[in-house]
């Protein structure tokens, strides 16, 4: 089970400084270990996106050479891109990793989908409710999430350790101060913690780290010719017959990629030629749109994310 490494393989004189990526990496590893040392049943939410990929990679590093000391949890909405499912299954094939897939059975029974029920109902039932179900069912007391503070205004003020009561609600007025590297993980029975090890990462950091560490990500992040339709101001990819076309919609081949991945009918692509990581990063550096722009679910009022979080959205 252990990957073997030769004894000491010194790398020359001691380094004198560490780059921002080194520091972000150490901070995240420290947080991951702290949770495993202090919580009873941690779990890592695995959404198959780039942030999850980075978080998983950091976890492998944190606990090496041991296998991952907690399972991954994928709350499946049933509307993910095919390539996402393919990567998920490859990850799950790793003997060092346990993966739990949860699909909200009520949503399945109601044949929940974003076309008939709309983006927010679909997301609420399949994602928010599904997540709560899974956490309750398995009795997880701490869940890692890949959210970053640079994604959205209200996240900027959320702590790294964010407490939820037994109803999974967040109380923004009652957050614990986080000083130095000290995290207070004590909680009442029934309460749980959402832990965000990537809090201090920016989107650019994530891309640069993916490049530096050679982390496998879903190919949809790279530009390629793909069939898309324009819908509600977004470029929606026509993966297959699962996407019902509206009248007048004719799929066109366009060179596109995704900056963020969610449910395929709700995630917009951007036109791009960036088919390598350096090109993606170069594009990022001159980018003019933030990544959440591509998510239909975020387009409501500007405080919507905060409201969703108070209700138990991750």
């Amino acid at each position, binding site marked *: *089970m*252990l990957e073997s*490494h*030769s*004894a*000491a*393989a010194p790398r020359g*004189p*001691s*380094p004198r*400084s560490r*780059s*921002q*990526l*080194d*520091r972000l990496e*150490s901070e995240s*590893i*420290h947080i991951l*270990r*702290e949770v495993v*040392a202090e919580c009873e049943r941690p779990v890592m939410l695995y959404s198959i996106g780039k942030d999850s990929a980075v978080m998983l990679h950091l976890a*492998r*590093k*944190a606990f*090496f*050479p041991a296998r991952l000391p907690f399972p991954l949890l994928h709350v499946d909405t049933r509307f993910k891109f095919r390539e996402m499912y393919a990567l998920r299954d490859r990850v799950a094939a790793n003997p060092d990793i346990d993966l739990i897939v949860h699909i909200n059975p009520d949503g399945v029974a109601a044949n929940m989908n974003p076309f008939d029920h709309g983006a927010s109902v679909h997301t609420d039932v399949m994602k928010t409710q599904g997540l709560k179900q899974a956490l309750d069912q398995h009795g997880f007391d701490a869940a890692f999430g890949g959210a970053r503070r*640079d994604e959205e*205004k*209200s996240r*900027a*003020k959320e702590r790294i350790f964010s407490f939820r009561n037994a109803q999974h609600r967040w109380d*923004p007025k009652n*957050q614990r*101060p986080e*000083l*130095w*590297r*000290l995290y*207070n993980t*004590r909680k009442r029975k029934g309460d749980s913690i959402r832990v965000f090890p990537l809090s*201090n990462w920016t989107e650019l950091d994530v891309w*640069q780290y993916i*490049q*530096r560490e*050679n*982390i*496998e990500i879903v190919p949809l992040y790279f530009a390629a010719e793909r069939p898309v339709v324009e819908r509600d101001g977004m470029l929606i990819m026509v993966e297959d017959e699962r996407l019902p076309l509206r009248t007048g919609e004719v799929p066109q081949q366009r060179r596109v990629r995704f900056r963020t991945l969610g449910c395929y009918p709700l995630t917009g692509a951007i036109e791009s030629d960036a088919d*390598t*990581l*350096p090109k993606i990063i*170069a594009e990022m*550096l001159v980018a*003019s*749109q*933030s990544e959440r722009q591509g998510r239909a679910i975020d387009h409501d009022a*500007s*405080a919507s994310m*905060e*409201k969703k979080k108070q209700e138990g959205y991750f």
Partner: protein
Amino acid sequence: MAAVKSEHDDFIGAQSDKQLLRFITCGSVDDGKSTLIGRLLYESRALFEDQLASLASDSKRVGTQGENLDFALLLDGLSAEREQGITIDVAYRYFSTERRKFIVADTPGHEQYTRNMVTGASTADAAVILIDARRGVLPQTHRHSTIASLLGIRHVVVAVNKMDLIDEAENTFRAIESEFREFASQLDFDDISFIPVSALRGDNVVEKSSTMPWYDGPTLLGFLERVPIDEQRRIDEPLRMPVQWVNRPDQSFRGYAGTLSSGSVHVGDRVRVQPSARESTVLRIVTFDGDIGTAIAGQSITLTLAEEIDISRGDIISAANDPAEVADQFDATLVWMDANALLPGRPYLMKIGSATINANVGELKYKLQVDTLEHLAAKTLELNEIGSVNLSLDQPIAFDAYSRNRETGGFILIDRISNATVAAGMLNFALRRASNIHLQALDVDQSARGALMGHKPCVLWFTGLSGAGKSTIANAVEKLLLARGCHTYLLDGDNVRHGLNRNLGFTDADRVENIRRVAEVARLMADAGLMTLVSFISPFRQDRANARVIVASDNFIEVFVDTSLAVAEQRDVKGLYKKARAGELKNFTGIDSPYERPENADIHVDTESLDVDAAASQIVSVMQQRGLFD
């Protein structure tokens, strides 16, 4: 994992080799802090078009700048706050230049929010202190500087803002500079820089301004790109690595995972594990990417040692030739962060490094008047107050003075019941060399004394209403124990109040102190090997929990003497209920002060169905089951 193809690209490479600087901004309300940070984000292009669009529409809707962008709005996150028009928490912002990535802790200027500033300052390498040029150095400026200094920030830049509104610009700026320098001479900064800026117009923020030709120093951003990073300084300190997690995947591997607080470690280094003081040699430094020969401050690694010694989470691995100090009593500075005031004598949990221990805040030496640096006498600390205290732990820890190492000298206190983080603290120095005393104490310890006695020491804590029968039953138990040849002592609440606790009244603080003293005495007696019986109303759950913590023994046995109020009042042996009903006694338990029934007492004695002897033998048989009699 399968590799994603990547081309090498110098430009991209340079982008990821940047350093990381964390800084905090502090200023009073309306000094222009939000405008300044907003400008830094804007000018370093950390904003995207959609964010700018929502900024533009927010600016029109609720902004204060007419048709212009109101940068301050960028920083307001939570909707309630946004409506109030103020920022009330710490928010973190990110931007970068070619040289560095920056993490900004944005903390508000309100006087009552010391707590937030302390949080933001704890991880900051530098502080930007904002002063409104028209208002000059204010009490809040002193406050911000003092907190920055206390929290160990060594590099400070004073941004004198709103220079565009000042006529005598240079004179005003120089006057502020000398006034600030005078106050700061009492503080601990390595260096202080002064920069005249206009956040609104962007003067000297990112670009040098032609409107202030008399100023020839760096711009604010230029300063931030060059100011030293604290982690770098700590590389030259001796090795400290708190052990976070012991990695034991199978029998063949035992690694110690942690983040280096300071120094560096090399394969072959001699290390000391503290507080146990055992030594070993570093065998491997294991990482996912292969073993490495050296690791430095800030790195999260896994070590294996040549000689197996007992190490667990909470220990510190130190350089053998320059180890940390070990002590259990400290002079410490506390910043109180909770709405419930500090109660000296009440035990709290202390988290320092990866260790969590029981801590008692003893004497409060003084409270610091933050804006004048005066020392005031005080009995307690309220939210946002800072004080100097004696701190004692129930076991020794390895530490460094906070001024030397923020990571091995900084700690938080946690309330045992609410689980809230109630204080941030900094260890200044050990009060005495407790380590030696402790090592000696191991020779003759509690179990050695107990062995001589022929039984195990314990504390039987009797709780119940006045007149419930606590003393009567405790007496009967003591007789049974004596008959078995046990060494016992009975501490009675009323008697103790006549002697040891004569100077205590019935206020909240006195009540806590009352229990603390009795619990401490009980602990000493148990430590001396005695079976100690305590008969004390102890009506509050938290106080009983505290007593259990202080006594710190597996053989703390809570005995709930359960008698209904009606029956106790009917017995009224001492006539106290009658007085209380007549209003002659205030705060009488059961009448006008609650009795919180124990939820899981170790022994529950129902006096209404058992007589005294039966109750006593019920208790003794539980003691028997616990193996207290050899």
